[in-house]
């Protein structure tokens, strides 16, 4: 009975693991196969890796898309880390009744569905297109701004600030540092792991964001990676080997981040619930 139970547990977990991994394996194997082989469900590695990659870089504008996605993800990450950590630190270290109320109101914004504000945002950015083209429709600035600071990350930094030793702040003040000096010279270096965790999550969110760039970006040269893949995926005569190569390239950065920084990754997820 006991052995039977054990065996069924392992069988169940193995099936779950196979189901989880299979699409990855298929994706990686498909990069090395011809389009025909991919559609025929070939599960063995082939010899078309170089040909697929060559065709990808020749026929698809993947390089501009990679550059756009990278610029957007990097700027978004830096902005979010800076603004959200300043706010999280401010709400926790300078607590007051007024700030606690404002904080609670900010948290409500986490319940706002993006689909509900996408039309007003589109109109808002539309109205500045002529005066400020850097932040108008079809600009990378317009992609970045709405996600530059979110209540989620303010909450995340506030939760983590609760564990930050307040004596360090006093010590910094006695040493004659300004309030901003305390923040940048003492808080930021001490909270490295919190920043790492937040950076991973923001970077991934930004790298994978689809709906807002789809709404706001219009010209093909402004396209980000998810827009490009979506476009390839819905084409009428798809070259599956090429599409799979694009998907693998798009997934590589986030997969690498995950494998190199697993601990921070999980810490980032957990940081939002503990406390």
């Amino acid at each position: 009975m006991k052995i039977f139970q054990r065996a069924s547990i392992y069988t169940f977990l193995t099936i779950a693991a196979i189901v989880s991994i299979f699409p990855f394996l298929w994706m990686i194997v498909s990069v090395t196969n011809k389009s025909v082989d991919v559609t025929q469900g070939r599960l063995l590695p082939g010899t078309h890796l170089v040909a697929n990659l060559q065709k990808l870089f020749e026929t698809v504008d993947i390089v501009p898309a990679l550059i756009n996605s990278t610029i957007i993800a990097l700027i978004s990450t830096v902005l979010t880390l800076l603004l959200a950590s300043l706010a999280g630190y401010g709400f926790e270290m300078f607590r007051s009744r007024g700030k606690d109320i404002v904080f609670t109101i900010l948290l409500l914004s986490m319940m706002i569905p993006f689909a509900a504000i996408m039309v007003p945002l589109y109109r808002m950015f539309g109205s500045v297109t002529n005066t400020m083209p850097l932040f108008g429709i079809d600009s990378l600035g317009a992609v970045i701004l709405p996600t530059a600071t979110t209540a989620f990350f303010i909450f995340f930094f506030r939760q983590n600030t609760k564990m930050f030793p307040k004596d360090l702040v006093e010590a910094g003040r006695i040493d004659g540092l300004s309030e901003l000096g305390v923040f940048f010279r003492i808080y930021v270096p001490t909270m490295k792991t919190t920043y790492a965790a937040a950076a991973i999550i923001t970077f991934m969110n930004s790298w994978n964001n689809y709906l807002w760039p789809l709404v706001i970006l219009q010209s093909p040269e402004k396209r980000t990676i998810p827009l490009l893949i979506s476009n390839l995926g819905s084409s009428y005569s798809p070259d599956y080997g090429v599409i799979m190569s694009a998907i693998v390239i798009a997934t590589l950065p986030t997969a690498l981040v995950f494998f190199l920084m697993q601990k921070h990754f999980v810490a980032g997820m957990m940081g939002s619930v503990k406390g």
Partner: protein
Amino acid sequence: MSQQLTKKNELDLPLRHKETKRQKTNLYFRKKVGWLFVIISIIAITIFNFYPMVQAFLLSFQSGMGSNLEYVGLANWKRLFGDPTFIAALTNTSIFLLIQVPLMIVLALFLSVLLNDPTLKFKSFFRIAIFLPCVTSLVAYSVIFKYLFGVDGIINQFLVNFGFASQAVNFLADPFWAKVVIILAITWRWTGYNMIFYLSALQNVDKSIYEAARIDGANAIQQFFQITVPMLKPIILFTSITSTIGTLQIFDEVVNITNGGPGNATISISQYIYNLSFKYTPDFGYASTVSYVIVILVVILSIIQFRVAGEKK
């Protein structure tokens, strides 16, 4: 000795007095500085979240093409109930929600309990494997699922070759199977994510509670429902709220796997809002009305979930 003490006190007292005065002015100053730390975020969230919410509310009473909008009162809200596409979108989104969220949460809970067993071998392999889908982008995995479930896709070849089906099933062209594929896809992507939350919560549960239950003769199923579920209630609530909000807004998957088809069999509310605003002749007013339905649903479902979790306490 006593002389020394008094001397010290004499020196100390005025100093301490001075210190408190300085601290007082500091405290006042600090209150102001505190606002400087939070002000940019408050402004940004107001401009990019709250203000658009108000705008969308006002838009929901307007109608017209593009930017030629005029107030039409409740006309948009009345239009909702007679709009077959909206009703299809609402029904589909509800089906995704009612089936997918419970399915995923039960599965994630079950997996986390199995993986929490200290005697289990290859634990970290299983954990990483099941979590792996979370590193994919929604668009990328959607495209992959579209191919996996295509007429000549791998799933069909498997079914036909192993005799589970006499001929290939056109999953994505069938209203029922297309929904099933969407539900399977979301479950594949998010189960491991939720499992990690449960696993870390389980590690904080005191092992002696299970020991005591075992001595009292509780079996594994009883332990699961009487100990594990009540202990994890806050985290289950958290994950069900985030999953509910997420599934209510589902967009990337339906657009990239089925594009809402066949017909409108898998169209979601978010996709319909997108289509109304940017695909058909833009009707921002009516689109905003539809979007407020999601807002209302998010609020109602969050309240219900809080109530349910509160009652059982």
